[in-house]
């Protein structure tokens, strides 16, 4: 998406730097977790006191064993802030439902390659996915003539491209980094909504699953895949899942998924179920966090009442 508001330099100018692969051995990490084991999640609501609701999510960081310059540890750090519900502007049309505005922004230092300040295509795309996921879970007709702003800032994210392996990932599905971001955004927004005391049908969480080919030609499903651990992917899927209703509000798959299974190839059904399992895993954490939050608030209330 061209930046039309500034005078930029010529589009084709210098050649981009290319990192050569290291000569000293393997630069990709091998996945040490079990296929159905998620990375550890740290989720804290209420980090921004001035906002109506907020939350912070961080995933366990996986480090390269080597000390190379281009060895980027993989992690995900997201912060979500909610303002509202606030009244719609006077000249806006009447609406009997809550209007959502979702803003996803990468911090310039979030990825290996610096991102500018203008919202680019990826951010808008991720924002649309998160909006689709959240619109289904908020009970919107409780807030007529109102709007909320959900602002998600990505402080650290995985690149789609694994640096140092030539021009790009071969034999793999691009965009896994973005899928992990979408999944994280859904979970963190859900925690922030709960913190902002907005009525939701359920605690929605995001989950990612990928289909990875093994050496013997079979495929295995990896939950919560990380870009630096998975050099070869067949397909990947991210879902936004509501466990209590057993419903899915967001589905996004990429890659080649053949139609029917002959025992060797993957299928859509099993990929969807794996992603749902990943979401269920994250839900356990979210539920724990929710209970702790509610308990903390109720003890605070008891202390306040006992003072008066």
């Amino acid at each position: 998406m061209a930046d039309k508001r500034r005078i930029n330099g010529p589009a084709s100018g210098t050649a981009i730097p290319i990192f050569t692969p290291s000569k000293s051995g393997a630069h990709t990490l091998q996945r040490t977790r079990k296929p159905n084991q998620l990375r550890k999640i740290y989720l804290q609501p209420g980090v921004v006191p001035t906002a109506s609701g907020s939350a912070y999510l961080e995933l366990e960081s996986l480090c390269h064993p080597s000390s190379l310059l281009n060895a980027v540890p993989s992690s995900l750090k997201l912060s979500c802030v909610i303002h509202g519900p606030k009244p719609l502007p006077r000249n806006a049309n009447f609406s009997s439902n809550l209007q959502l505005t979702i803003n996803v922004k990468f911090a310039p230092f979030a990825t290996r390659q610096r991102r500018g300040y203008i919202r680019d295509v990826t951010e808008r795309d991720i924002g649309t996915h998160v909006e689709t996921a959240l619109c289904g879970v908020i009970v919107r007709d409780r807030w007529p003539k109102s709007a909320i702003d959900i602002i998600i800032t990505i402080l650290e994210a995985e690149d789609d491209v694994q640096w140092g392996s030539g021009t790009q990932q071969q034999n793999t599905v691009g965009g896994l980094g973005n899928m992990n971001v979408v999944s994280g955004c859904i979970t963190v927004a859900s925690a922030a909504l709960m913190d902002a005391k907005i009525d939701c049908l359920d605690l929605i969480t995001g989950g990612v699953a990928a289909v990875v080919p093994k050496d013997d030609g079979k495929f295995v499903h990896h939950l919560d895949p990380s870009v630096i651990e998975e050099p070869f992917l067949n397909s990947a899927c991210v879902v936004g899942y509501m466990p209590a209703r057993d419903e899915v509000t967001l589905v996004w798959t990429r890659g080649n998924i053949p139609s029917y299974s002959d025992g060797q190839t993957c299928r859509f059904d099993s990929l969807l179920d794996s992603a749902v399992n990943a979401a269920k895993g994250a839900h356990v954490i979210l539920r724990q966090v929710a209970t702790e939050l509610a308990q903390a608030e109720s003890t605070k209330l008891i202390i306040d009442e006992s003072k008066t």
Partner: protein
Amino acid sequence: MMPATSTATTLSPAELSYLHTSLTQTPPLRPDLRSSTEFRPLRAETDLLPTCNGSAHVSLTDGSEALVGIKAEVHRTAGANVTKRLDEEMREKMSLDEPSSTISAAAAAAGLDSNRKPRGHPDWISLNVDISTLRDDDALLIFLSEMLREPLLTTSTTTTTTTTTTTATRSSSLADMLVINSNWHWHLHIDILLLSPFTASGTSYPLPLLSLATHLALRSARLPKLKSQGEEDPLVDDDWESSLFLFPPPPTSARKPESSASGKAGPNEQHSIPPREAGRLLTMPPITLLVMTVNSNIIFDPSHSELAVADAVLAVSVSFSSDTTTHHHHHHHAQTPTLLAVRTIETPARDTMRGVPAAGEVVEGDLVPGVWRPRVGGVKREVLKRVVRAVLGASADDSGVAREVFDGLEAFLRS
């Protein structure tokens, strides 16, 4: 006091409730009496823009029209020197009796495929959607262009058994077909224009129209034939008649009046770009279908009023790939459908007003039949799986909706 742009198309709760009840019947009763897998007829035309490598114009009966033009330019490959040097270094390092998997992994690391030909890069395909009534950075527009672009970049991998009974994974994508040599490649610009005005609450969602137009344009796209060989700077043949199709044309296509006028035999002369390896994959560009669900009914090609009451709306991208062995050249039969992408789209039925019941206020949770409630929640997993099954076909024999659409396109291109 001029009418706002979004008037005349929001529906009243009574209409929404009526439509929804009609669509939940078995079989679903659509407002224009179509069956649930029936598409509205379209008019299409290919190869109409003289300055483009490929073009298509598609229009629907409800007035929406799309025009797609494909232009190819020769660009220099960035980092080509590095790739070559890497490859040489890798080969020096390894002895020749290393198992093939290491060699291919090394080649992959050097940016080459297992046959040591340079690989394509997804940046070589730029897709741009232009809708006159929307801003360039409108979220809907970006979502649409991403949905149309993603399936084009998919690498398909297949395992083919060679005569020496070792299994090798080969993969190719559209980008790989754009390689000229290690220094030069074709850059494909796909420009999609929605000619009819589109307001967010007006005409139906343009995705299937744009996707079909892109598919037809890609099928009709041709690249000039290369006269240069090997690593020379590219030089192409000026004769357009000898140009090669990007995707293989259907078997009997003798449409071109020029070719018959110049005396050449029609179909056999126009070959496609020779496949990179014998196991040709992704023989056709993808198609994106719009599907909606209402309770447990699945409805294809929804019109605007049907979308207004949808419980869930999905965009499903499908293509056909063939599994072949190395010695086969025919790849028209035995084509299996593959799912390239699935995306959920926000359903407009969420942002609607409640209906007014005849008797007093309705308590939340009390479902009064005939009174419209805005949709909440998501879609059940079972329904999602059924949607995919309906698109792809439940088994090897059953032809899903995707097969019907592809057959229709094939029949059109052949005529």
